[in-house]
């Protein structure tokens, strides 16, 4: 039962990733692609949690912590580049 629910969750997240990827590939302006990038990083955190659940290893969560804290740096760098901040 729980396994089936995890499968459904993975399928939904996967579809979300594909949609965000579509926006990344197509996005008219650079900023649109950055939004897609931001969304993708957060979806990746979810994916990592799901992988940790599926494999039953709690130590994988450390990777998710690093992601959650570092993912926003990339977005800020691009945003500062776009507005000529450095």
């Amino acid at each position, binding site marked *: 039962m729980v396994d089936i629910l995890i499968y459904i969750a993975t399928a939904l997240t996967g579809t979300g990733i594909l949609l965000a990827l579509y926006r990344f590939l197509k996005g008219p302006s650079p900023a649109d692609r950055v939004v897609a990038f931001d969304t993708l990083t957060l979806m990746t955190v979810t994916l990592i949690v799901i992988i940790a659940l599926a494999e039953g290893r709690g130590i994988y969560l450390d990777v998710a912590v690093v992601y959650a804290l570092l993912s926003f740096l990339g977005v800020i760098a691009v945003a*500062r580049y776009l507005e000529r901040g450095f």
Partner: protein
Amino acid sequence: MIRKFAALLILAGIAAIFTGLLFTYEPDAELNTTARYYAERTAADIGAANIVTAIVVTYRGLDTLGEVTVLFLTAAIVGLVLARGRRRKEDRHLAPVGELLATGSRFLAPLIILLGVYVFVNGHLTPGGGFQGGAIIASGVLLILLADPCRCLSHRIIDTVESVSGLFYVGIALLGIVLAGGFLDSHLLPRGELGDLFSAGAIPLIYSLIGLKVGAEFSSILAHLSETEEL
């Protein structure tokens, strides 16, 4: 056009080799001898829960020393290549930093650096270690640079951290010859209980020093890049 054609030809050759490799690849069913040795002996010999860390710091410790040296050389060369063309930065026109980013970075940067410390101190228990921790620390430094582009990082602090941790790293390695089995031997300190923070001999100490050194090297690369003049 001819250029593209030649490129495609080369790629076709490489692709043929890759396909051959892919179709003849047979995954091992058992660990090979080296891996089996590491898997069976690490817990008893080294006492580190993370076998990758045990390989990086102890079994292949000399490689890691070399790697850190390569990184040091890279940082030095980047500094050398970019050394000319410094300019005072007051005359650069930059978009102002928003208040939100300024506040947010001031309170997130210490947290990121502490996360880096956690990653390298726990290198022998959890995924991560000196290199990852160093990279995270450099990311924290980067956040400071992003939030305040005109700020000059103190090169003195970075250089001091770098050389002191490097010295201690080599010092511990040499102590291993005197007090334990050989160069970079981690049995300098007691092995401890598997899973404790203070365990695995000198591995946490060595990895912390590596982390500080790598973090300082990456930070110095970033600082050099951010201080170059705009063309």
